[in-house]
């Protein structure tokens, strides 16, 4: 191992089967632990939201659904904690682990990594504080569209989270550069390759939301400026918003491409095609964001159709992934004794929670991919935009593929970090399959409710416009919510059990790839080239949208308002 020769001073943690640096264990551990805190705060809201929206439940309990009283506070907590903090903290921690283990060296500038962590933790604390403390004014949802303005601390906390993730990204680039210098001509392991792609995409796209927050929302919240431009804010937000979903998804792909084949008992079908898929995600995930703005008045049809076209393009790497992972799973099942044409589907290690969780994520992703492709078509989008269909869709992607893959990762990573075996495999399997059933029901019923006219983000049960059909479907969604609640409880039994009650030593080893067996074209690592293409594509696809959104007639004229209905000042 070359890296240990270069840096001989690093101490290794001496748990059995745990090959990890102490410094690394601590760093990764705090990120995962903090991600779990965010998960705990956010996830219990989910089922109770679904109860709150179900007429049958609300009428049975006379509106006394426990856990929260103000619906929009709950939705804000749920969205902010899960979509922003749980994901980002988990991804940063997981990325540190993958980069350090794959390159077999400590992250560069580890002190900075701790600074970044501190920033993100303070950000988390600020958000929890303001969401609990300033209930009405903080309830701006995780998309925080102006002119609804939250307390400044809300934005400051989010800025700290993003700045922390930028530092983490920079440290990964730095570590990669150092490795590159020592390994001329070699290919970087696929997992690290994907994480570099992810952080590049994240950094470029988050500039949009950074401008929105730093130049519009935060100054308005502090009272430095009196007005804001809501259409421009939406454009800036969605410059960032679509890459955000790939920022969540790529780490799951890392697990599917570089870990699952081994965990499932096979090997990856094609490494070069995996790299090509990741490069396509880098290029095409930013110039598609207008598909979130199909219903916006301030964006022209031409831009909408250009982005619709590119949206179809960005599904290609996901189809490539479907093939590549499918083929890898087939190899695994043939190794496990699978026979016949369909044999590969069933002959998987369904009894291993690490594998089963990820397979559940993939099954849900099939539904998510189909519904996603449907709503990418502009006309269909007009019938489902801002209806319950949309959360129905993204609970199978973010709440399905991403979340279940992250749980699958937790089921091996947490034992490694803790140095104890997973508390219970059976409970973990129970968790995975209840999640599958719950999400299928939830996603389907939410979709149907949306088609029957139920909007999203609304405390619906007693809405005057609720149709009986939508009401029935929302009752169904609440049944999905009950099953998911059980699943969450099973998850926590295992998390707490593994951390505090497990006594068995950890077994198995981490599914990390340190060498690249098959050479892939060197051009995939010409990062400057790819960044240049991303910039050009962004200018072409987003430039006109920005120019059009600029309001020369009014300037930034809309007044900031709070959620309570009174003007801020």
């Amino acid at each position, binding site marked *: 191992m070359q890296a240990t020769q270069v840096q001989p001073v690093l101490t290794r943690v001496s748990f059995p089967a745990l090959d990890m640096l102490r410094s690394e264990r601590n760093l990764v551990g705090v990120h995962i632990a903090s991600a779990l805190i965010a998960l705990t705060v956010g996830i219990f809201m989910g089922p109770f939201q679904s109860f709150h929206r179900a007429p049958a439940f609300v009428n049975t309990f006379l509106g006394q659904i426990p856990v929260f009283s*103000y*619906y*929009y506070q709950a939705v804000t907590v749920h969205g902010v904690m899960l979509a922003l903090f749980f994901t980002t903290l988990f991804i940063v921690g997981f990325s540190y682990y993958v980069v350090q283990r794959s390159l077999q060296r400590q992250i560069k500038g580890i002190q900075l990594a701790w600074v970044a962590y501190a920033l993100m933790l303070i950000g988390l604390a600020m958000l929890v504080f303001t969401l609990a403390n300033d209930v009405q004014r903080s309830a701006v*949802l995780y998309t925080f569209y*102006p*002119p*609804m303005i939250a307390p400044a601390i809300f934005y400051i906390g989010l800025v700290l989270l993003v700045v922390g993730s930028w530092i983490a990204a920079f440290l990964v680039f730095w570590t990669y550069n150092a490795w590159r210098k020592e390994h001329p001509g070699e290919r970087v392991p696929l997992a690290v390759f994907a994480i570099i792609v992810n952080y590049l995409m994240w950094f470029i796209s988050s500039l949009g939301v950074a401008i929105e927050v730093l130049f519009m929302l935060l100054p308005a919240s502090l009272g430095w400026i009196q007005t804001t*431009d*809501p*259409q421009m804010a*939406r454009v800036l937000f969605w410059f960032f918003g679509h890459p955000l979903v790939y920022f969540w998804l790529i780490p799951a792909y890392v697990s599917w491409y570089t870990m699952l084949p081994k965990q499932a008992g096979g090997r990856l*079908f*094609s490494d070069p*095609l995996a790299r*090509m898929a990741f490069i396509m995600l880098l290029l095409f995930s930013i110039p598609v964001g207008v598909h979130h703005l*199909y*219903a*916006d*008045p*301030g*964006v*022209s*049809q031409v831009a*909408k*159709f250009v982005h619709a*076209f590119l949206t*179809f*393009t960005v*599904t*290609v790497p996901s*189809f*490539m992934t479907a*093939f590549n992972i499918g*083929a890898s799973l087939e190899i695994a099942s043939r190794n496990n004794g699978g026979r016949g044409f369909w044999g590969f589907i069933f002959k998987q290690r369904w009894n291993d929670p690490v594998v089963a969780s990820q397979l559940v994520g993939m099954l849900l992703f099939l539904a998510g991919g189909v519904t996603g492709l449907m709503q990418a*078509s*502009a*006309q269909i989008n*007009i*019938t489902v*935009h*801002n209806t319950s269909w949309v959360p129905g869709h993204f609970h199978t992607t973010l709440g399905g593929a991403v979340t279940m893959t992250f749980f699958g990762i937790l089921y091996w990573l947490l034992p490694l970090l803790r140095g104890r075996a997973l508390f219970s495999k059976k409970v973990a399997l129970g968790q995975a399959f209840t999640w599958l059933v719950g999400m299928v029901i939830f996603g389907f019923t939410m979709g149907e409710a949306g088609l029957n*006219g139920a*909007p999203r*983000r609304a*405390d*619906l049960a*007693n*809405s*005057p*416009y609720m*149709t009986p059909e939508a009401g029935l479907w929302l009752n169904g969604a609440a049944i999905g919510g009950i099953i998911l609640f059980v699943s969450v409880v099973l998850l926590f039994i295992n998390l707490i059990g593994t951390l505090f009650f497990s006594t068995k030593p950890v077994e198995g080893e981490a599914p990390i790839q340190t060498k690249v067996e098959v050479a892939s074209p060197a051009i995939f690592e010409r990062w400057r080239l790819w960044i240049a293409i991303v910039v050009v594509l962004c200018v072409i696809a987003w430039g006109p949208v920005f120019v059009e959104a600029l309001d020369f*007639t*009014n300037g930034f*004229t*809309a*007044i900031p*308002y709070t*959620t*309570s*209905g009174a003007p801020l000042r």
Partner: protein
Amino acid sequence: MHIDRYERYWLMAVVATLGAFFAALVATLVVFGVSLPSPAGRVNPQNLAASEFAEPSVRNIGGNRYEAHIVAKMWQFDAGPEAGSPPTIRVPAGSEVTFYVTSKDILHGFQIQFHTVNMEVVPGQVSQATVKFGRPGVYEIVCNQYCGAGHAVMYGQVIVQ
């Protein structure tokens, strides 16, 4: 770079399917004239009195064609005194109504259930959509963009007679 034969077939099938989807998308635009909301003008939300939204209303502009100017605000749609509050817009079956909607305060949404009207309503911008009401019935107008505490009760109705 080696690409497996089956993977090549798969990719060709994917590209063909996506191409067909996109062609369908363009066809609906060009052939059937389906349109998405797009820039229809700007107004100053603090001075709607000086704009086409000074007096929200639903007007017949000849034959079976109508024009509705609606102002969204926390937490109601204002379609003029005749329509009332929450507004009830009555039109005969077969009418074609063009909606012009803007917001006085924050973001709202404007969706008519079971019809292809679904727009973000943004202060400073005019959202426009034209729709034909074929079948008689009561169709709810829903605010489907989060706008604060009263969001879930912000609505109106179109009654097609």
